[in-house]
């Protein structure tokens, strides 16, 4: 949505797109949080955090997330089989007492692969999101603070990236760099940067009009100090909401890349890669090889979204 990326309006020039800009503030590719985040900025008080602990949605989300974190760290200790152990006498066996989730075409235990498959995604997701949030915050603060030509140029580049589906940009870079955990973190961090920058930019633009910013500028503080010392603390709630929601979309992106074969490489257990390897077997009826990893991905993103939504509710209250 290019209306968002217009330079700040000069007071004497009619700006027909200004209204569009306001209406379109929240539009864009998977970027649902901008207006909500801006609206809730600087309203939260420490006491409000206690509200978080009262919501059932938060506890459900936290419990599921904790379960997967335990699986990621200790999963190899309590998984019934080794996730890599093949049993060629028992290929594609249906769920039974010995193999609760059945086995895959190589006779590997699906339950064990689901349990241990949580590890890589849980390492990559937070690191990639943190990277994207830091870079996006710096870029967004600069765009919102300086405005003008810098904002216009950066805005064009951001929009050019937003015109492409994230998954496609990400796999272009991963094909170029070769899949590895480090590449995945970097690439997802980089493709999230423009999205987060856009949210931070609109929040920073609101703050820039405030008196405290003018005051600190009059004190002669450097732009960097004003941006990070004055504006940043005030847009933190917006960034926090953006961060938690992005965590959900990072899982979405990583799982999708794995599914397309650009993520975690076999034989390492991974939900997305396992679904890709076995979805052909859906037609003959071996549904357990894909359904259980699919449900695992769904439960993880839903957990993250429940937590993200609870935080947003607290900040908005």
């Amino acid at each position: 949505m290019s209306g968002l990326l217009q330079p700040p309006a000069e007071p004497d020039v009619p700006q027909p797109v200004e209204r569009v800009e306001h209406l379109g503030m929240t539009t864009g590719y998977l970027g649902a949080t901008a207006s909500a985040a801006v609206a809730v900025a600087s309203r939260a008080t420490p006491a409000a955090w206690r509200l978080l602990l009262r919501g059932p949605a938060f506890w459900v989300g936290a419990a599921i997330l904790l379960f997967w974190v335990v699986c990621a760290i200790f999963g190899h200790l309590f998984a019934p089989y080794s996730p890599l152990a093949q049993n060629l006498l028992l290929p594609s066996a249906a769920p039974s007492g010995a193999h609760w989730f059945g086995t895959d075409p190589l006779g590997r235990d699906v339950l064990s692969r689901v349990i241990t498959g949580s590890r890589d995604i849980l390492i990559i997701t937070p690191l990639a999101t943190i990277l994207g949030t830091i870079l996006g915050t710096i870029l967004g603060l600069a765009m919102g603070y300086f405005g003008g030509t810098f904002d216009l140029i950066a805005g064009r580049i951001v929009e050019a990236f937003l015109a492409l589906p994230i998954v496609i940009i990400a796999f272009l870079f991963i094909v170029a760099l070769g899949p590895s955990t480090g590449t995945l973190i970097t690439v997802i961090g980089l493709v999230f940067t423009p999205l987060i920058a856009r949210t931070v930019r609109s929040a920073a633009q609101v703050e820039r009009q405030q008196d405290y910013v003018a005051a600190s500028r009059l004190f002669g503080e450097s732009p960097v100090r004003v941006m990070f010392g004055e504006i940043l603390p005030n847009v933190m709630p917006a960034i926090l909401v953006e961060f938690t929601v992005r965590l959900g979309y990072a899982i979405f992106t990583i799982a999708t890349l794995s599914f397309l074969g650009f993520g975690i490489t076999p034989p390492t257990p991974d939900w997305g890669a396992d679904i890709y390897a076995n979805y052909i077997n859906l037609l003959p009826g071996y549904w357990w090889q894909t359904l259980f990893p699919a449900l695992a991905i769904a439960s993880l993103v839903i957990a993250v979204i429940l937590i993200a939504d609870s935080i947003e509710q607290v900040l908005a209250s």
Partner: protein
Amino acid sequence: MATFLLRRLGLMVITLWILSLIVFFAGQILPGDPARATLGNLAAPSAVKALDAELGVNRPLLTRYLSWIGGLLHGNLGTSYEFRTAVEPFVRAALINSIKLALLAFVIVVPLAIIGGVIAALYAGRGVDRIISVAGLALSTVPEFVSGVVLIVIFGVELKVLPVTASAGANASDFEQFRHLILPAIPLVLVLFGYIARMARAGTIEALNSDYTRTAILKGLPRRTVIRRHVLRNSLLPTITVIATQTGYLIGGLVVVETLFNYQGLGNLIFQAAVHKDFAMLEAGVLIIGVVYMLATLIADLLLTLLNPRLRLGGAE
């Protein structure tokens, strides 16, 4: 209005140019020699060299960019490395297939999501609202291949009521083709639903809190009339922009859905081109996506301007 249009078109050209740079150079950093990839490992070095010369990939980068962009301006999308024929017929066929699938998804999701969002807004803060909002957000972060797998298991494998591949074959009737597209469209619908509903909800809440709604209520209009004539007319405008910006996402989703359901669309084309290192096809496909996305946002902005008198009059100055 004319100034607005010119300005938007100008910005669009700049963004497209940046996009062409991104696409071209991202394509160039992909490792691997296209001639080697086409001819295979056993081909003689002289044959590889000859094909490199034929494809023009041994020329300097800048020369290649200029000849590529020059060709684009003349409507020539380039020559496929893999098939050694013009890219254009492939891209055209894939685009038409993708549009069919995307249209079906939009036709299902737009009314559903708007109704959902308006209901959520009318009961803002209550149970119905929380269910629609949280469920919508959660659904929009569950990857398409996850919901796709679940749908295939339920409707294709267990109930056997719907076909699990998207292509009905060349001689299939329109109805048969439509039946094959139902399952692939649903994952796209699920992801889009939460996003569009969220925007419709935000727009409706803003309209409900406005002065004109209060006036309408105070002058004694029935609630039903107020909502239909005053609230909905204003709240649905921003939703139009949102729907248009989702075309970018939609194509990313198409990569996954078209792979899972084995459908020859634009997403599948780009994915296959990346796997086979067919840069010419890849660049053309990605650029088409960018153009489609920008045209969609432009049309949405125009529509918004036409429907909203304040913007129309503002633009006439």
